[in-house]
């Protein structure tokens, strides 16, 4: 099928490839892309174990993620930035292939900026997520692994979309993506109210990530929480989940029942 190569070349404003009038704009990539086999999914996708979540509430959008990267049973990093800053008013989350997420989010940022320059107005979250979804759809079956949420604030208010590498795109108010998502959903869904303050929402997001890292081996590191409001996004906190554990379950000194005594003799 026709690949959307607009991400790999300078933006052609009017015509796609195949238009004889401007042959220089229709250059296809010179390498042939591999068809997906099961091997491609397993190789070096070191961020597939993860927990990310985002939800819309009264004041805007809250986005949170952990920071662990795992390759099978090996923890390759505890400090991966899984919340990607597309532009000052839009965030993307990373789940799946780290390189895929980073590259295509960066590419989306370029397209959003070009849209702004051409149309003298910011692109909507709807439009941005659609651009990404269309690109991912054109690479369907070729091994991209992306499970991302696009969160932002535009003229119509807060916006949240889930976009994945199968080409799916869903609009919603609460999403969690990754191996730790079932645990995060449990906490998120039971504690969610639309009328929350920013602090309450941040605390909910933080707790949801923490609980996911507690039970999911592939999630851990630092729980980052970002807030997206009418003036753009702002990082609210980045807490180590180990420390969060003792914050939620402080150590209480228990009464000593029996003291260990030195055994006389060897």
């Amino acid at each position: 099928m026709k690949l959307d190569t607009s991400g790999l070349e300078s933006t052609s404003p009017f015509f796609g490839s195949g238009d004889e009038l401007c042959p220089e704009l229709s250059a296809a990539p010179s390498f042939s892309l591999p068809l997906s086999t099961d091997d491609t999914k397993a190789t070096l996708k070191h961020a597939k174990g993860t927990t990310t979540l985002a939800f819309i509430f009264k004041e805007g959008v809250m986005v949170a993620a952990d920071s662990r990267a795992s390759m099978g049973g090996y923890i390759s990093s505890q400090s991966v930035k899984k919340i990607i800053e597309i532009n000052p008013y839009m965030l993307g989350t990373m789940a799946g292939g780290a390189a895929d997420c980073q590259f295509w989010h960066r590419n989306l940022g370029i397209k959003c900026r070009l849209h702004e320059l051409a149309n003298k107005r910011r692109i909507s979250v709807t439009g941005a997520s659609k651009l990404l979804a269309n690109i991912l759809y054109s690479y369907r079956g070729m091994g991209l692994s992306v499970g991302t949420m696009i969160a932002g604030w535009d003229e119509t208010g807060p916006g949240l979309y889930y976009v994945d590498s199968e080409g799916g795109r869903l609009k919603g108010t609460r999403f969690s993506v990754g191996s730790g998502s079932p645990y995060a959903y449990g906490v998120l869904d039971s504690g969610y109210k639309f009328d929350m303050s920013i602090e309450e929402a941040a605390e909910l997001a933080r707790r949801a990530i923490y609980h996911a890292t507690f039970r999911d081996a592939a999630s851990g590191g630092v729980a980052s929480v970002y807030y997206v409001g009418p003036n753009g996004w702002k990082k609210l906190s980045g807490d180590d989940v180990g420390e969060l554990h003792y914050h939620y379950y402080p150590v209480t000194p228990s009464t000593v029942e029996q003291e260990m005594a030195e055994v006389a003799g060897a």
Partner: protein
Amino acid sequence: MARYDRAITVFSPDGHLFQVEYALEAVRKGNAAVGVRGTDTIVLGVEKKSTVKLQDSRSVRKIVSLDNHIALACAGLKADARVLINRARIECQSHRLTVEDPVTVEYITRYIAGLQQKYTQSGGVRPFGLSTLIVGFDPYTGVPSLYQTDPSGTFSAWKANATGRNSNSMREFLEKNYKETSGQETIKLAIRALLEVVESGGKNIEVAVMTREKGLKQLDEAEIDAMVAEIEAKKAAAEAAKKGPPKET
């Protein structure tokens, strides 16, 4: 030797693109078209040359809609217009599909102008021989806009403009008589401008009105005739008033 390079669009020694200029000539021979922007209404008016008796006049609509909220009128080669309009309509839908938003007037004007420009910079093609007047409301802010493009591919926004035959006289009239209007007043201003250069009567003018709520509405002959009658009556009254007072001294 000096004449041969005018067949394709290349620069002349003194910096002209003759093919583009000749295209502008074709526009000047086309029927008159006028557009007026009001505060809540935008009006497009086009001269209809005397209707051939056997022709079904409904098949030669000169004011067309590109989308629910955008309309276009043009002057020049009508066959070229068809091609451009089809491309623009596709782009309107394509934009809705990729960003889930209707186009703004400025966006589609830029697209059409870009298309016209492309054909001035390619081998083996000639420029489109038409100027367009594009009107519409911004889908979010509701602000009305009127834009004009020409064969060279330039475009700009206007409060009121005219193109085609005798456009200079119409533009002069508009410059003298333009003021911020709304509703019926805007329609009357557009018709008055057209009547400067066109034989008066409903069957020689085609008028379409665009409003935010109702979109594009083509006025039928009876409605146009009624307005023309109103305008002429007012004109006659104004002339009589001018001649009247001096006698009272």
